[in-house]
């Protein structure tokens, strides 16, 4: 365990999580520095969601520690923004897009706040930045998945976080929406120096923008650049069985070898 250095936004040291008798995460160590774009990649069921929840403070760790800015995590942390995978709303929920983004500023505070022009402009600017201005007055429950993603990104960014976590933002999106979201994120992150960590089971759409990758499999992680991590030896050690890395047509595929002993996870093909 190395000592935390200055300027680390988020640091996990030897984190382990045990739930219901099962070890979900084991010996996870990683750091995130300002401005980094990190992909949290791995097959479903590998522990990505649990890892995200640990970072958000929604899940306690049974081992290790979580540090924000070098200090142990405190629930009132405002410096981490979050974009959840799914919204729990019905189509008639009385929230327009601009209401949702406005909640990003102070939706966690009690009391009544009177509307102000400065606030409205701030919301409008944010909406324009993510490309959601044209449906600012639509009910958020009636938008498409891609549109909702943009709105939730605006919601998270308007609070000026230093780290933005996104849970499977690209799942359930078509290709062009996928590319749209990735480019919005990359552009905004670079412009504001915000670190981004997003989870996905397919790393390929993120290859152009990822600085680092946290690859999760069987509850353990391998951290580094894609060149360092996406190697057969590294991944085989992670999965506990032989896997191959195939690069074809500019895409990367991680494939489990057909003859595997000790199979404890069904790996299949990871895109």
């Amino acid at each position, binding site marked *: 365990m190395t000592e935390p250095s200055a300027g680390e936004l988020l640091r996990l040291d030897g984190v382990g999580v045990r739930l219901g008798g099962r070890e979900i995460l084991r010996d996870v160590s990683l750091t995130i520095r300002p401005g980094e774009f990190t992909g949290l990649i791995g097959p479903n069921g590998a522990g990505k*969601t649990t890892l995200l929840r640990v970072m958000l403070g929604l899940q306690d760790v049974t081992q290790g520690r979580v540090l924000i800015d070098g200090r142990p995590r405190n629930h009132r942390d405002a410096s981490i923004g*979050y974009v959840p995978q799914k*919204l*729990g709303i019905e*189509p008639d*929920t*009385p929230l327009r897009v601009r209401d949702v983004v406005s909640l990003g500023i102070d939706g966690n505070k*009690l009391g*009544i*706040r009177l509307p102000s022009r400065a606030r409205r402009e701030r919301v409008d600017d944010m909406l324009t930045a993510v490309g959601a201005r044209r449906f600012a007055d639509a009910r958020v429950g009636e938008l498409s998945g891609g549109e909702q993603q943009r709105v939730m990104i605006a919601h998270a960014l308007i609070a000026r976080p230093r780290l933005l976590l996104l849970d499977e933002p690209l799942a359930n999106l078509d290709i062009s929406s996928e590319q749209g979201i990735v480019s919005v994120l990359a552009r905004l992150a670079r412009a504001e120096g915000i670190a981004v960590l997003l989870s996905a089971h397919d790393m390929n759409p993120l290859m152009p923008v990822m600085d680092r990758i946290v690859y999760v499999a069987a509850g353990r992680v391998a951290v580094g650049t894609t060149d360092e991590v996406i190697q057969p030896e590294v991944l085989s050690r992670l999965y506990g069985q032989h896997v191959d890395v195939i690069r074809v047509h500019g895409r990367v595929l991680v494939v489990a070898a057909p003859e595997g002993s000790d199979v404890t996870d069904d790996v299949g093909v990871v895109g």
Partner: protein
Amino acid sequence: MFRYIVEPGFFGSGPVHIALAVGAVIAVTSAVVGVFTVTRGQSFAGHSLADIATTGGSGAFLVGLNQFWGYLAFGAGAAAFMEMIGIQRRRGRDVATGVVLGAALGLAALFLYLGTQYSSTTGASFTILFGSIFVITSSTVPALIVSALLALGTVLVLARVLLLTSLSPDLAAARGVPVRAVGAAFLMALAISVALSAVIIGAVLSTALLIGPAATALRVAKGPVRAAAVAAGIGVAATWLGTLLAYDSYYWPPHGRGWPVSFFVVTLVTGGYLISYLRPGGKPAETPAEPEHACSVALC
């Protein structure tokens, strides 16, 4: 002509003044709380609380108290209990809840029976079950107003947090919102609103003032502030118009009795909801697929 719309003595009558003033306060509270109730998918919790309030009102009658205290005590108690065993969840439409409600209503039956054995008040059962805005005793008025302001105040202070939580409970929790405590506070406000509505239109029908105006408002207003305002307007209109019609109906057949206020209020509220489907260009709501449970936090 005016005489046929407003029967003589309406504006001069004491009970009418109380009915209109208190009715308006209660209607606004229920409507605003109702918007959040429907948005959070807690209509059934409201209904459960109403059934338990029935038991409370009957019990109060049995021991000689004003039924509002019974509605309030049992409703608040039930809310606390529901919170403890985690029954707030959106899909809490359990069989278990139904069975408990059945037992509670059975108890209400018993209380009413015993109460009518020992009391000489005629029509008490009817008043507890179906309410009467004209028999609000002036001694309970301060308690009613204070309770209404308490419930309304709670919901207004929690408004943004409630909206954030309904957007995504995980997100709210990640931003430091004590989701469970907020849910508990809201459930209490809901219990108080149910008790208040029960005073006007009876325990059995109280959810009409809670859900009707809110459901209509959600169909015509997009943002939270406007939805609350529209709901409040509908609630007050229905209550006032219902009061007026109930007063007038003294002169309608059968003479000298008057039709129940609760009938008018429920009809107006339901009618308003149905009318909202006639808006030109208003699309019929596609049956919303139950959204996949987005939360991993204990309660939504």
